[in-house]
């Protein structure tokens, strides 16, 4: 049956107009909450307009009218079925502070992916370390930068204060910003590479592990173990775990994509990925500051034992934070 378009439009136009003005009012409202009268009105107008759309779709070929009604129904549908967070809540600073508790909680909840990231990195470390130990020729391949190949010269320069980074707070600040940006970019990439079903994440972690293992063995072989520990650990105790957490986020994402249909609560799972990324970014800010302002100072300005002690203290605090924060509340909730 072909619809009598003219008569139909005259009858229906008033309700389309009132739906349009109701939607306009709702969409401009920041929290998008409906009061009961509005909700009822929206529901009624939505149902009527949807019926109109069905009639136009099946009873007439009026492409423009159909498009117009589809747009209207889509907008009404979105308002009816969307349960928004209240926007005023989002702007409360206390909500943002929740990240400090959510981060360790999420870290523990998804700890098996962290274990996987550690495993891949340790394998890389072992390969890099063994290669340098038993095949000195591999050093040229594994450690491209000269200062990594010949630690003696670098240590001498650093200790004489002739390294690239002089002890001026100005250059240190600039250096720290570059470090933070670079490290967050790399970590974010590791977390995003989860879309390659985790293969990219694994490769990145593995390569990172090889470098780490090779450098460690090279410096230790040549008798600069303490220097290296004091040089790398004050920032490394945050930097290395944060790259591991990036790997954790990457593997978690891979698992999420592989099992999307089983996972009913996509929203919560996405939030977990975001929380991990936000947490590791905070860690990398600290690592960048430490690397620029603290790690680059060597004996005799700062005794190596003191630097190592600081690193150990940092690691202890980080461990306590990640393993214990919010534990009681989580346990109580579980019960």
């Amino acid at each position: 049956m072909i619809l009598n378009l003219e008569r139909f439009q005259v009858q229906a136009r008033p309700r389309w107009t009132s739906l349009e003005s109701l939607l306009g009012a709702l969409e401009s409202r920041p929290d998008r909450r409906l009061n009961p009268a509005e909700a009822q009105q929206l529901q009624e107008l939505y149902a009527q307009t949807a019926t109109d759309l069905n009639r136009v779709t099946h009873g007439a070929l009026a492409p423009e009218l159909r498009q117009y009604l589809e747009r209207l129904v889509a907008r009404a549908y979105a308002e009816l079925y969307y349960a928004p967070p209240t926007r005023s809540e989002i702007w409360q600073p206390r909500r943002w502070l929740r990240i400090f508790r959510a981060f360790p909680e999420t870290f523990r909840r998804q700890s098996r992916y962290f274990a996987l990231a550690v495993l891949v990195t340790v394998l890389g470390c072992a390969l890099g370390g063994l290669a340098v130990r038993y095949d000195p020729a591999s050093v040229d391949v594994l450690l491209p930068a000269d200062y990594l190949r010949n630690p003696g010269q670098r240590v001498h320069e650093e200790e004489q204060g002739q390294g690239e980074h002089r002890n001026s707070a100005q250059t240190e600040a600039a250096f720290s910003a570059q470090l933070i940006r670079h490290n967050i970019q790399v970590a974010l990439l590791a977390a995003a590479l989860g879309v390659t079903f985790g293969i990219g994440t694994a490769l990145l972690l593995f390569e990172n592990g090889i470098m780490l293992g090779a450098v460690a063995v090279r410096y230790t072989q040549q008798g600069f173990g303490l220097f290296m520990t004091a040089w790398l650990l004050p920032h490394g105790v945050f930097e290395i775990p944060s790259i591991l957490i990036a790997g954790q986020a990457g593997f978690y994402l891979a698992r999420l994509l592989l099992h999307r249909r089983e996972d009913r609560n996509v929203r919560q799972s996405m939030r977990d990925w975001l929380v991990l990324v936000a947490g590791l970014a905070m860690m990398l800010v600290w690592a960048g500051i430490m690397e620029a302002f603290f790690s680059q100072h060597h004996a005799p300005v700062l005794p190596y034992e003191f630097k190592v002690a600081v690193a150990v203290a940092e690691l202890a605090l980080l461990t306590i934070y990640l393993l214990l924060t919010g534990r009681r509340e989580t346990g109580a909730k579980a019960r």
Partner: protein
Amino acid sequence: MTQPTGASTSVELTIATPEGVLFRLPLAGPASRLYAMLVDIVIVLGTVNGIGLLGYVIFAKVPGFGFMVITLAEFAIGFAYGALLEGFWNGQTIGKRLFHLRVIDQAGLPLRIEQAWVRNLMRVFDALPFAYLMGGISVLSSPLMQRFGDRVAGTLVVRQTPLAVPAEESWMRQKYNSFQEYPTIAVHLRREATPELAGLIQDALRRRNELAPYARREIYRELAKYLQSEISPFPDELVERLSDEQYLINSSGILFGDQRPS
């Protein structure tokens, strides 16, 4: 619940609501998204350089700290621009608004703030290895035209040109319709014409001025001939007096208008 349908000019997502209503959302193609992104990049670069200049003045005494603040601010703005605007401004950045694009949830709902952050953070992957090659490949190979960030976040970009209630067509408003004098044949026309055929006639009339004169003559002649010979044989003495166009206008008056055969 949702499924993409291909058409010659654009790709659409069809959404079935729980009430059994179907509606289509036109998806945005890579070109318009690229333009919108270029606008956004210009805006971000402008903002960042503005902040840079400001920082340069404020931190003139301590350039190192100035550099630190500016670098970090730039970095944060790069990600936060898209995420915050899309999250709080109905799925639109300034570039997207200019090009009538909008990011929405795959189910046709407004996107959530988490989704906005995820799809914008995933840009580090979509931008690989250069010039958003990964994202481009993903858009072209995805039935929903999603880049990897969209796939992860469960979002898509739709076209949203503003629409008004279509005005009545002038050809619908003619007062006198000679076909009404032959009610039996007119009723037959109403009954036999399929919605597709009716739409074809309507479309041909609506596009009158878009068609080249030659093409218009041909199309109108074919349609009128078909109607006259297959569906509604009006008397020859009437048809001879009418142009093909008038024949179609009369037919559509019978089909769509208030000029019901009495």
